[in-house]
């Protein structure tokens, strides 16, 4: 068990390393001149030269990568081109804002989705099940920004001016004005829940039809015991993976949502950085998103291992 966990940890670190390599190669070593890409076509040769020196584009790739990676490890992510702040300082507060948004969405979506999925399975082929099925099918399909816009159209325009359409804070303390968080969080919840609901339903149905659940019923156990002791614990296992995938997806999903609502987080920072060709910020944000994704999946893996008696208590 401990060995398995250590193995997963080592593997997560390796993935993170490879991801850093991809980020680096994509931004600094792609065909074409990164300095020109940053400054645009009408840059003067002098400025290009100066930027190349700053990016150390004339050094061998390995050296460039090594010094960049050393910086990443020590949280020295360089200086933002656009606002001359150290990247870590520029992003710290935004990261807290984004993580708050993601955490809120995760905390609401996970239990609700698991419950809805299980409920749907228990009410299989009845009206509640069909309604849930149709709703998840529709929500799973629509891109999340479109869900957000539909929510804005419904709640912030026309007759209902219930909720603000655009975030109007500076990100110092995003929790101070909860009304502004409602629509972004709701959008994320609607976007991450459907796969969890569908997986929980499928898993629960499979378990309910398993022979050990039939055996539990034939033993004469009350239905409550059958569901909560025999079915649910076995059904949740396969769902954990999907939950992890979905929560990891949140890290990338916030980009479009923050852009839509003007929420001051890392996603908006990424879009700003792309428009201003602010390379250090682009590198830092993509790395951060990948890191969140990897960590969430790692956690799910470990929880999954710990919950499985076949792994926890090895066979004799």
């Amino acid at each position, binding site marked *: 068990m401990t060995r398995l966990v250590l193995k997963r940890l080592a593997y997560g670190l390796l993935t993170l390393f490879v991801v850093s390599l*991809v980020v680096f190669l994509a931004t600094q070593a792609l065909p074409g001149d990164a300095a020109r890409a940053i400054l645009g076509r009408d840059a003067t040769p002098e400025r290009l030269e100066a930027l190349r020196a700053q990016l150390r584009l004339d050094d061998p790739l390995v050296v460039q990568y090594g010094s960049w990676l050393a910086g990443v490890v020590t949280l020295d992510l360089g200086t933002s081109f656009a606002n001359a702040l150290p990247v870590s300082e520029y992003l710290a507060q935004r990261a807290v804002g984004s993580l708050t948004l993601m955490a809120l969405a995760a905390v609401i979506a996970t239990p609700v989705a698991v419950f809805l999925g299980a409920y749907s399975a228990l009410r299989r082929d009845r009206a509640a099940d069909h309604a849930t099925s149709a709703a998840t099918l529709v929500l799973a399909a629509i891109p999340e920004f479109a869900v957000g816009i539909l929510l*804005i*159209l419904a709640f912030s325009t026309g007759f209902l001016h219930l909720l603000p359409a655009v975030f109007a804070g500076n990100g110092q303390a995003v929790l101070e004005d909860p009304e502004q968080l409602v629509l972004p969080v709701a959008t994320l919840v609607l976007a991450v829940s459907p796969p969890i609901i569908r997986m929980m339903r499928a898993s629960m149905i499979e378990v309910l039809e398993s022979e050990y659940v039939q055996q539990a019923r034939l033993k004469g156990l009350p239905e409550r015991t059958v569901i909560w002791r025999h079915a649910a614990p076995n059904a949740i296992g396969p769902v954990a993976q999907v939950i992890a995938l979905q929560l990891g997806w949140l890290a990338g999903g916030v*980009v*479009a949502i923050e852009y839509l609502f003007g929420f001051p987080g890392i996603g908006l920072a990424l879009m700003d950085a792309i428009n201003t060709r602010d390379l250090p910020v682009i590198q830092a944000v993509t790395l951060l998103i990948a890191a969140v994704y990897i960590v969430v999946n790692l956690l799910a893996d470990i929880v999954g291992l710990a919950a499985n008696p076949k792994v926890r208590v090895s066979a004799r």
Partner: protein
Amino acid sequence: MTAATADTGAPAAPAAPPARGRGLLRTAWGYGRTKAGVAIAGAVVLTAVIGPFVSPYAPTELVGIPNATDVDGTLFGTDQVGRDVFSRFLHGGYTLVLVAVTAALAGVAAGAVLGMAAGYLRGRLDDLVMRANDMLLAFPQLVLALLVMSILGPKVWLIVVLIAVSHAPRVARVAREATLRVVEQDFVKSAEAIGVPRWRIMAGEILPNITGPLLVELGLRITYSVGLIATLSFLGMGLQPPIADWGLMINENRVVLTVQPWSVALPVAAVALLTIGANLITDGLARASIGIDRGVQK
């Protein structure tokens, strides 16, 4: 029909053989949701395809004051620079549909080949493909596309390549799982025992038995491609102005949402309906595929 040879007690041939189960597509068509999906997605695709031929104005033609809902001769008013919203809507779909389908097809084809080879040939190749997959999967698709396009700039071919590349590992995973289930079965061993070449086993024995999951993947990937491309355009990283494109229209007009909702609502509705329709079809295929696979396994 010749009579059964008698003495070994073979079952006499019945007058008519038991009917074959219906194929995947026909079974899927039997579900109401598939029909609904085809109707919805079909309507949107039809709009995208014949839209450019029936639109009242050219997509870049200025027809009135910006952001008005009551301009004479327009159905839904004008956008933020004064072009006809309806005409831009009619012109704005076919690139999206075309790019999405191309990217999904390429991604599914690449993923199927990789997954099948990994699942059947196993060994080093399997390790390599699956490890590379895990790395690629650590990037959300959208972020990978943004990362590369922030350097190379938004180009249509790049969108196709990036989306196909980010689909491939996800499809490969599904194709590999399906292949593993098929490879376990003895008919593959039976072909190996008489020395049928590996590539022919993949093409002749395995591929026909994983078309179900692959079709489902194709549906899913088309759904996601539409969403991704629309999202990229919405973020300003897709097609560039002044082209008429649904995602771009949303991006350009979202600031004036409260004044001129049509210029956002129309493309949002089209994108939403297209993805919903595609997903309904996918779900029908998935249900049919599960049912058929169960039937095969006894």
